[in-house]
C-alpha cells in the first residue's frame, strides 16, 4: 500500500453490506469516503467526492450497476468494480461491456481482492 490511501465509494442498497464492507476495506488500508444506496446518488457522490474506486452493487433499486458503470466511465476518473451476491457467470458479457474494471463476488471481497481487480 502507498502512504496515501486509495479512496473508495461503496454503492449498495443494503446498509449491513455497506457497513461490513467499510470495516473490511478500512482494515485492509482503504479509505472509505462515502456510501450511496442507489444508482442516482452513486452518480452524484462519485461526481462530488471523486473517489479512486467505486465498489458498485449490480442490482440497485433504480438504475442497475451496469448503467451506473457506463455513465461513470465517460465522466469520472474512478475505477469501477462491480459486485454482487450473485456470481459473475450469472451476468455473461454484461460485466465486460459495462466499462467496469472487473467483478468481485461479495463473499470474496477484501482489500487484496479489490486491489487485484483495480490493478488489472
Amino acid at each position, binding site marked *: 500500500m502507498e502512504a496515501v490511501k486509495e479512496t473508495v465509494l461503496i454503492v449498495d442498497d443494503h446498509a449491513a453490506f455497506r*457497513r*461490513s464492507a467499510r470495516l473490511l476495506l478500512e482494515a485492509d488500508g482503504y479509505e472509505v469516503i462515502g456510501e450511496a444506496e442507489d444508482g442516482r446518488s452513486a452518480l452524484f457522490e462519485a461526481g462530488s467526492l471523486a473517489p479512486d474506486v467505486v465498489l458498485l452493487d449490480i442490482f440497485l433499486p433504480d438504475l442497475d450497476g451496469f448503467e451506473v458503470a457506463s455513465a461513470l466511465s465517460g465522466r469520472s476518473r474512478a475505477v469501477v468494480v462491480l459486485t454482487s451476491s450473485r456470481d459473475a457467470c450469472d451476468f455473461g458479457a454484461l460485466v465486460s461491456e459495462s466499462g467496469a474494471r472487473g467483478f468481485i463476488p461479495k463473499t470474496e471481497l477484501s482489500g487484496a481482492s479489490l486491489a487485484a481487480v483495480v490493478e488489472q
Partner: protein
Amino acid sequence: MPEPGAEILVVASNAVASMVRVPLEDVGHRVRVVADGVAALSALRRRGSDVIVAEWKLPHLDGRGLCQAVRADHELSGTHVIVMTSAARTELAPEALEAGADDYLATPFERAELLARVRAGRRTAQLRASEARLRALMANVPGAIYRCAPDRDWTMELISDEIERISGYPPADFIDSAVRTFASVIHPDDRGRVEDAVFQACAAGRPFVLEYRIQRVDGDERWVLERGQLVHSTNGRTWLDGAIFDISARRQAEEERRRREAEQARVAELHASRARIIEAADAARRRIERDLHDGAQQRFVTVALQLRLLVSQLERTAPDIAPLAKDVLDELRFAMNELRELARGIHPALLSERGLVRAVEALLSRMPMVVRLREAPAERLPEPVEAAFYYLIAESLTNVCKHADANVVSVGIGRARGRAWVEVTDDGVGGAKSSEGSGLSELGDRLEALDGTLTILSPPGNGTTVRAEVTCA
C-alpha cells in the same frame, strides 16, 4: 247488376225438364238436361254444376242414389241439390233431405219460387266452394290454423290438420274440446305464461306472438310459435284466430349454437386460466429468487464479511483459533454457493432484468461446453414467451449435456411475421423422445398456453433439433 248465369243440371223426364229449363234459361243460367241418375253423374264428372235440380223418381239411378253419390264424391260434394217431388208426395221430402239433398220443391211450382230456390242454392254452392278452397289453403299452410274461444281451455271451433303433425293428436280431439282441451297439450311449465300473454294482448286489443312448448302424444316436446288475435264475429261472439307453427328445428339449432358458444367460451377460459396459472407461477418464482437474494443471501454476505474481519484479527491476536474461524468461513461460502445455485434454478435474475438474450448468453457461458448463439432478436419478446423460451433452452441444453454426446451445439432465437421461435440443435446421438422426462412435457404445456408448438426432430445417430414456435404479435 245481373249476376253471370249459374251452371245448372236438370235431371228429369222431358215433360218436367222443359218446365224447369225455360224459366232458368230466361234469366241467363246455362242449363244441361239429362234423363236419369247415371247420365247425371257422368255429365257432372265431365263438367261440374253449381246446382242440380232432380226428380226423385228417375230410371236407373233414382234421386236417393244420385244424392248419395254426389255427397260421397269429393269433387261433387259441394254441389247444391234440389229434389222435386209431386205435391201429392210431400212425405218424400224428409227422405230426400236425409239422403243428402239440400232442398226440395213440390211440383207444380211457381216460376218465381224455382228461380228463388236456384238462386239460394247457387249461393250455398259458392259458399261451399270458397270454404273448400279455404280448407285446401289451410291444409297447405305449414302451421295449424285455428279459431278458438278465448277461454282457459282454448276450446277449438276449428283447427287445421297440421295440428296432428305437431301434437300427434287428430284435430277432431280439440274441436269443442271433445277428447282433450288444447290447454292440456301445452307444457305445464308454459301454460300460465301462455294464458297471461294471450289475455293481456286481448285486453290491449293487440295481436300476440309467443313461443312455448307442446307435449306430444308420444311424450316428446315440441317448440311452437303461435300468432293470433281477438276477432269479433258478426253474431256478436268473440274468437281467437291464429296459427301455430312447429319451430322445434329452429329452437334446436339455436340451442345447439348456444351450447357450442358456451363450450367455446369454456375452452377459451380454460386456455386463459392456464396462461394465468403459468404467469402466476413465473411471478412467484421471480419473487422467491428476489426474496432469497435480498434476504438470506444478503445476511450471509454480511456474516461472511464479518467473519473475514474476524479471521484477520484472529490471525494477529489468537493464531491458534484462526484456522477454525477460517473453516467456518469456507463452510459458509459453500452454503452460499448452494443457495445461489438454488436461486438461479428457481429463476434467472437476468431474465426479468435484462431479457431473454442476455439471460441465454449468461446461461451459455456457464455451460461445460461451447454453445453458439447463432441468431437472436434485437428487441425483447413478451415476458411469458421469454420465460417459455428460456426454460426450453435450459432444459434442452441439460439434455444435450446428459445424453447427446455432441460436438457442435447451437441456439437460435428469432421473430418474424407474427411468430417467435427458438431452436436448439446438436450433432449428437439423436433418438430423443418428447415423452421422456417431465422437463420437456411441462414445457409443452407452457407453449400450448401461448398457442405455441413444440417439435422434436431426433433421428437416431443424426443429432437433435428442438424447436418451439409461438404466435407473437
